[in-house]
């Protein structure tokens, strides 16, 4: 008898939790009951598959990211975490019969160690480029987006890229990004200034503290259009890098499940929809 009540209690808790988490998806409130049921159905359907991966929190895909990387993930005026990656991970979670949650903002260079360490987050979907160095620490899903780098300078400046390769020039970047590595390799004489967030770097270039900044091209284009009209993209650096979703090597089932979900999202046109929504084009 006592076990019955306990089970009831757990079930109620679970339902309450699911209700609370439904908010994460945004505006899908009307379907509360039905979503609950489908989640239940799917979990029962997928019993053999269920054991194939573990999650930090039951029924929740926990995400970790640096939340100052618009339009991929950022915090809007109302304090909500929004962006292309956010919509994408919601879509992935939906395909997997889960809800998704975001951990508080974390510096970009700590994301890969966090996933490697495990225990805090399941995945990092944060505009993380798949590189062989990172692959030594964490596994990646199939690439979901192509990207390039951008070299940003003040709109009024008259630098050419080669002018920047001297010690007096300070070039900002976000710590641990591929842009950071690009400066080290391609402008080795310049003074590299790794910063925690992109806005600080752009602000610095705009005020003249730094002469340039290297950051992912989509982010540069977005932020220049939104808030830094006094900056310009001096050079679009063709790197052809690809973003992937970082997953721990200890959780191979999760990677497979995410890849399945990604394939479905590509196939049913959700991906193109999201690209259209956030970049205004599907050609990216």
């Amino acid at each position, binding site marked *: 008898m006592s076990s019955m009540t306990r089970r009831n209690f757990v079930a109620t808790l679970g339902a309450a939790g699911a209700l609370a988490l439904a908010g994460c998806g945004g505006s899908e409130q009307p379907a509360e009951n039905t979503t609950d049921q489908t989640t239940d159905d799917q979990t029962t359907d997928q019993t053999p598959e269920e054991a194939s991966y573990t999650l930090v929190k039951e029924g929740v895909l926990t995400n970790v990211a640096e939340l100052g990387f618009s339009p991929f993930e950022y915090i809007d005026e109302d304090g909500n975490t929004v962006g292309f990656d956010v919509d994408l991970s919601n879509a992935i979670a939906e395909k997997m019969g889960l809800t998704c949650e975001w951990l508080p903002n974390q510096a970009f*260079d*700590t994301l*890969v*160690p966090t996933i*490697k*360490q495990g225990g805090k987050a399941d995945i990092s979907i944060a505009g993380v480029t798949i*590189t*062989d*160095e990172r692959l*030594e*620490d964490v596994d990646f899903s199939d690439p979901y987006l*192509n990207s*390039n780098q951008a070299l940003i300078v003040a709109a009024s400046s008259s630098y050419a890229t080669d002018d920047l390769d001297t010690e007096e020039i*300070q070039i*900002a970047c976000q*710590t*641990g990004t591929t842009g*950071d*590595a690009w400066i*080290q*390799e*391609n402008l*080795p004489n310049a003074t590299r*200034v*790794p*910063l*925690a967030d992109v806005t*600080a770097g752009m*602000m*610095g270039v705009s*005020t*003249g*503290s*730094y002469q340039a900044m290297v950051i992912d*091209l989509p982010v540069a284009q977005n932020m220049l259009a939104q808030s830094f009209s006094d900056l310009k993209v001096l050079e*679009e650096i*063709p*790197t*052809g*890098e*690809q973003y992937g979703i970082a997953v721990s090597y200890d959780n191979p089932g999760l990677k497979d499940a995410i890849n399945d979900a990604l394939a479905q999202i590509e196939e049913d046109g959700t991906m193109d929809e999201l690209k259209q929504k956030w970049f205004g084009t599907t*050609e990216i």
Partner: protein
Amino acid sequence: MQHKRGALLVALALALTGVFALAAPQPAQALTTEKATARPNEDGGDGVIGGMDTRLTWEGTVEGGEEVTSVTLTLPEGSTFDGSTTRITALEGLKRMDVTGEATPSGPSITVSFDQPVPEGSLLRLEITNMQFPSEGGECVVSGSYESAGQTHELADSKPIETIANTPLQSIVNWLDEQPWVEAWNSNQFLGMFLKPQLLVTSFSSLAPGWILCLGIVVAAYPFAIALGLLFAMLKISKWRILRAIAVIYINVLRGTPLFLQIYIMFFGLPMLNINIDNNLLGIIVMAINSSAYLAEIFRAGIQSIPQGQYEAASSLGMNYVQTMFTIILPQTVRRVIPTVTSDFITAFKDTSLLSSVGVMELMMFSKNLTTVSGNITPYVAAGIFYLIVTLPLIKVVGIVEENIARSERGGGPRPKRRADVADNAAAQMKEVAADAC
């Protein structure tokens, strides 16, 4: 020196013309070398060390009318591509194309054959991770060949990549790499993540400049902080209301807002007013201003803790206020505030870490960079040890000084032991007598 450089330039020019002379008779290049670079692999430095894993990036453009089916890159003898992984990227403008292929290393060269020919007009990038340059270092030119339409052509030489021979520090690390106990230690996830011996060694050497800068900033800032603090302490106990108000506002605003915010305001605000100050100097200024507010309160409390009798005694000797302050009150205050000021110094020293967020190359910045490169927490632990090197002795000093002050406040210096014994005995005897009387 000038001559030498000149000679080098001439030699370089000659070498270049040589290359062009060789290249000229050949049919038009279908694959032109754009650049070849290597990722710095010196821990905490920016050198490319030979004999250690690094990444070679080679870029070339496929010219019009040609397609490339395979590329072979060759490095000087002693380089190795064994155990490397190759990432192939082909781009048309900024658009990525699907090109896959397979890399086959053989000694100092590597051949990448593509499953689909790389079309004309595209930029081809090969990123070869975990390859090694010759361990003796030197200038490494990437040469090689490519295959196009079944024919093999020579690749133009790249600009040389500067590499250096192994450093003593790196040798220690390499030695550690081979030790079985190190391997056992690192296989424990916690120890390997937080206290990896190899990284501790490299962290200590590469964090040192950051540590010096931290110390430099706080040591340079502190005299100014003390002077400013004293000034505002005097203002706060001044007779005039306006001066008191100024001091109260200054102290309360600075103590009531986070240092982080003050740093941001100074580092991003001043340049907007076209005031451009060197980052390190600005760091010193921010630290001095912030500390001065805390010191002002410490001094104020110190001054007010001096008994009123001291002022009265001084005025009975005919001293005026300034004389009293500087010859009677402040000297006594100094002794009383030394422990608190030292504690504040410790806090200020630790707070320099916040300057890393605005690009001052101090201890945290260096360790953050190292953590990024290594994906390991050990550099932070090493930074912690660096902070402790300064703070632990200071904490000890605070303890000793406090003890001394407490003792002197109790009744001035060490007591003669015997007399204390005598007194105790006398007391005991008194008690006995009293007991007897009962």
